[in-house]
């Protein structure tokens, strides 16, 4: 341990370097969110005081958006559309991923490559056709009109992450369980499903974040509170009065819609990271 003292000081210096870096990184990530939070707490008079931290805390803006039917409609639309498209995408992707991982059939590379090319597909390229088709078929400004594109555009992500997760599952276990006398259904119910759930859940989170975030389809394919989702409602938010800028209300609404995702991210941080990176490292 001749070099013990040197490593210690070295590691102390290194540790404070990385520690400082961590503080900077956290500040970088949280700054705009803290800013919008503080903006949401400002009342009408202090809104233009240019202070980063509000001088007093007012819930005025939160009361305003709670009374706004536009905003509650958008939340319901976003939740409904997001959850249904997530469910559909994950179920379809589960079938495909199971087949890709467990079965041998020609064309499975093609499915993965096709999914990959759709992940890179520019949504603007199909906005015109969808707009026209939806207008003719009556899907314009409906939930289904957004569920269909969301489901499709999240399928690649879901298929890739689920295939990566399924590949790690100990499938030999099902043979062992069968030998022990379990029926195929029991094997699935008690052995495979519990192990597969974390992966399925992770891709569901990623898919939900995509639909919750989308703005392009939401503005192009909706026009009223019937199907307008949160991002579109925020961008077109007019507030209760036409004569004042609804900045405070928009800030409060932004905070409300960011909370669920922030909470999910904090709770399932490890899984989300695993899900996001599974495709990249292995693909």
């Amino acid at each position, binding site marked *: 341990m001749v070099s013990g003292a040197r490593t210690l000081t070295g590691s102390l210096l290194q540790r404070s370097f*990385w520690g400082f870096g*961590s503080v900077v*990184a956290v500040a*970088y*990530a*949280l700054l*705009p*969110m803290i*800013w919008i939070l503080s903006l949401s707490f400002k009342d009408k008079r202090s*809104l*233009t005081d*240019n*202070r*980063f931290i509000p001088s007093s805390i007012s819930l005025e803006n939160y009361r305003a958006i709670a009374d706004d039917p536009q905003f509650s409609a958008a939340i319901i639309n976003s939740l409904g559309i997001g959850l249904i498209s997530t469910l559909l995408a994950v179920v*379809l992707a589960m079938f*495909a991923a199971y*087949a*890709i991982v467990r*079965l041998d*059939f020609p*064309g499975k590379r093609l*499915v993965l*490559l*096709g999914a990959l090319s*759709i992940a*890179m597909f*520019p949504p*603007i*390229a*199909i*906005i*015109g*056709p*969808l707009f*026209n*088709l939806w207008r003719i078929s009556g899907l314009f400004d409906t939930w289904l009109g957004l569920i*269909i594109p969301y489901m*499709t555009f999240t*399928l690649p992500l879901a*298929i890739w992450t689920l295939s*990566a997760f399924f*590949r790690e599952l100990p499938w030999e276990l099902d043979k062992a369980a069968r030998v022990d006398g379990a029926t195929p259904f029991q094997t699935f119910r008690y052995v495979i499903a519990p192990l597969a759930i974390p992966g399925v859940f992770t891709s569901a989170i990623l898919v939900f*974040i995509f639909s919750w975030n989308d*703005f*392009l389809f939401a*503005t192009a394919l909706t026009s009223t509170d019937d199907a307008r989702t949160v*991002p579109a409602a925020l961008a077109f938010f007019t507030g209760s009065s036409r004569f004042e800028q609804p*900045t405070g209300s*928009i*800030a409060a609404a932004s905070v409300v*819609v*960011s909370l669920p*995702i*922030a909470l999910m991210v904090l709770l399932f941080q490890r899984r989300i*990271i695993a899900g*996001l*990176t599974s495709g*990249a490292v*292995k*693909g």
Partner: protein
Amino acid sequence: MTSGAAERRLGWALCAPAVLAMLVVTAYPILYAFWLSLHHYDLRFPDEQAFVGLRNYASVLSSAVWWQALLNTLIITITSVAVELVLGLALALLMHRTFFARQFVRASILIPYGTITVVAALAWKFAFDPTVGFVNVLFGVDQAWFSERWSAFFVIILTEIWKTTPFMALLLLAGLTLVPQELLKAARVDGASSLQRFFRITLPLMRPVLLVALLFRTLDAFRIFDTVFVQTRGAQETESVSIIGYNALIVRLNLGLGSTVSVLIFVCVIVIGALFIKGFGITLDPRRST
């Protein structure tokens, strides 16, 4: 297990719903967009619909608006992806090395990724706004950021970088964990400095992941829409190609010209993808993962 034919059929049957959905919602509309782009098709004048051949392409490609938007999009794409690469690498190294509040750091980094792009664009817009924002006061400047082209670009690019660097960082972090520690240790014993180890061992080994991350982010940045729409709506010559496509299709209801822009954007994406695959030799072969 099952015999070959039955297994094959089951495989196809299980993939069919997903494949069908993807084909119906992307392949069919893109063909329809191509058809529309060959027609004079304006929803405000439905009676004037007619086949015009490549005339729409001629008018888009000879208009200054398209080239301006393409230039703007390339400026935004190249600047933001370049900065993200450097920042993302730094963040990835940080997450790889630090043990200081590791979980908290990683969770914070995910916040920008999870934030709705429209919310991020609004937050930065308000921050730079002269009446409500804190940026001008903080730096003691008097700047109307969104009334000039380059300062508006600055805020747009900043928003993009803030929002998507974490994604880049996480992909690169995954790449970092693939670098064998023994190799780095051996190099250290042989007297390689930390910089040498980084540039001679870590970076080359990360190359495949790095290129995939770059390709994904480049294509993603190229379709930028939300941030520009919220912050400037394309004013001060900050329109991106997606914005002019949207304006033609949804605002002016000109499906013919709008679809021409759409098809051109699609072609640009294919060209960028091909450049990456040919130029850098990226392999996106899924066989490697099985």
